[in-house]
Each structure stands twice: as C-alpha cells, then as structure tokens.
C-alpha cells in the first residue's frame, strides 16, 4: 500500500514537470517562425498554370548546376559599358516583371507558367546599346547558344526569368536565368544563361538554328527551315 502511495506521489510530481517542459518547448518554437519550403502556385488571376515538373528534359548536355556564389552574367559585344553582373545584382538592380506565358516545344508539348524576371531591354538600356547592334546572342553554361533580333527584345518586353510559378527556377529549369522568348518556339527559351552578347552579325545561327531549325522561330510558322 505504501509503495502504491509512493508511486502516485512520484507520478504526480514528475508528470506535471514533463507536461510543462513539452508545453514550454512548443511555445518557444511558436515564437520563432520557421522558414517553410516555397510551394509553386498552380493558378494565377484565373489562369490555370502548368507545374514546373511538366517540362521534358531536352537540353543538349543535361541539367547544368550553376554555383550562385561564383556566377557571373556577362554583358558583352556592341555596348558602351560591358559588365559582369552577379546573380544578386541582376535581381536587385532591375525592375521585376511577372507574366503568364506558354512555352511551346517543337516536340509537341507545351506548358503555361507564371514567369517572373527582369526585362532584357532594361539591362541593354543600362549598358548603352551601340547603333550597330542588331542581334542579341545568348550563351548558356552548357555551350548552348541562340539569338534574337534586338528589335524583338526591345519591342516585346522580353523577360529573363529567375522565378517560375512563384518559386526560384529549379536547376533543371535553368537556374539562375531562363529567357522567356514569348511567341517563339521553345529552343529560343535558352536556360542557364551566362552571357548576353550584342552583335551586328544578322546571319548568326545558334545551336539548333545551325542544325536546320528556323532562325526566326515564330510560333505561327514551321520550326524547320
């Protein structure tokens, strides 16, 4: 009988202590908000969006892993002030824009995504375009290249995206930057951009363009020349 009473006394002391400790732990965690993994959005202003996983991997060398710490975006060629940007500088020094645009791949699939990024035009304006500059050549980490006319870039508010569906571009999707070449076939949507070169070579052909793909790449025309 004495043992039972002793056990009850011990329990009545220990149990409240345990409960108080657990409770206080919970309170301290609640006071410090934890960062949750960002989740992509699937609808924007009434438009249903595709998922970042709906893309098919079709890059020439597989996904490129870019180290953001050492990353430099080079702006070269026919501009007054060639410059190397860090990832942060590209994002912090330019106005941000959002737009829902569909990427149509020549393979037959398409994805509708909310893109967020900076205007290539803003970057070009900042560096001062020289009058001879006719073509913007984009270079990627994997050696992929493509080109677009300067007029197209300026007139169409072309975005260089760092976010899609409200999350930072995943590695497979082109981190740190992907070009959003609206109304052009998917091979103009270059990923893992490392250099933007201004050129006067209107006959320049990028990776796929030099392998028989149309250089204009307009969605309303054939992608084969």
């Amino acid at each position, binding site marked *: 009988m004495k043992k039972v009473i002793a056990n009850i006394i011990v329990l009545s002391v220990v149990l409240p202590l345990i409960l108080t400790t657990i409770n206080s732990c919970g309170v301290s965690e609640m006071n410090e908000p934890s960062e949750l993994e960002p989740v992509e959005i699937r609808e924007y202003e009434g438009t249903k969006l595709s998922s970042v996983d709906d893309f*098919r991997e*079709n890059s*020439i060398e*597989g996904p490129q892993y870019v180290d953001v710490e050492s990353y430099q975006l080079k702006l070269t060629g026919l501009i007054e002030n060639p410059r190397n940007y860090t990832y942060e500088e590209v994002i912090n020094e330019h106005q941000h824009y959002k737009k829902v645009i569909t990427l149509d791949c*020549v*393979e037959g699939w398409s994805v509708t995504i909310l893109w967020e990024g900076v205007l290539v035009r803003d970057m070009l304006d900042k560096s001062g375009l020289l009058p001879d500059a006719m073509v913007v050549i984009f270079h990627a980490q994997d050696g992929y290249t493509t080109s677009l006319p300067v007029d197209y870039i300026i007139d169409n508010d072309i975005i260089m995206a760092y976010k899609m569906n409200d999350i930072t571009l995943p590695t497979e999707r082109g981190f740190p930057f992907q070009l959003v070449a609206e109304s052009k076939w998917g091979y103009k949507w270059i990923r893992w951009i490392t250099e933007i070169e201004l050129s006067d070579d209107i006959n320049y052909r990028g990776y*796929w363009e030099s*392998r*028989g*793909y149309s250089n204009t790449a307009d969605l309303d025309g054939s992608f*084969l020349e």
Partner: protein
Amino acid sequence: MKNIAGLDFIKIVVHWLLIIVTVLYLVTGFGITEFRIVETFTFGLLTKSLAFRLHDNLLIPFVILLILHILANILLRRCKVAT
C-alpha cells in the same frame, strides 16, 4: 491461280515495307525525344532535325502501307476461299 501468286507477292512486299517504315518511324520518334542517345548510337547521322523531317514524312507512307497490309490479307483470303 496467277492472281493469288501476284497478291501473295504484293502482300510480302507490303509486309516488309511496313516493317521497315514502322521501325524507322519508331527510331526517328526516339531521335526527337531522346536525341542525345540516338545521335550517339547512329554516330551523329540521325540528328534531331533530320529525325523531325523523316518522322513527319513517314506518317503518310506508314498509314498507306498499313491499309494495304490489311486489304491484301482480306483480298487474299477471299481469293483463296473462292478457289
């Protein structure tokens, strides 16, 4: 009897052509979606853009050969039943 021999010959030709076109259709299809692998295996001969062109142009011959393949079988059976 001559008609049946002629039909048999057509059937065999169509049959083999259909096999060739089907294989080419599949390979060029892979040449589009798995271009890195196919380019390596074909020593760079079947590029993605060539695969696109061939794949597009093979659709109509494939459908025609498939129809001929079915018709040849039906006709041959009818002829054999009649004789």
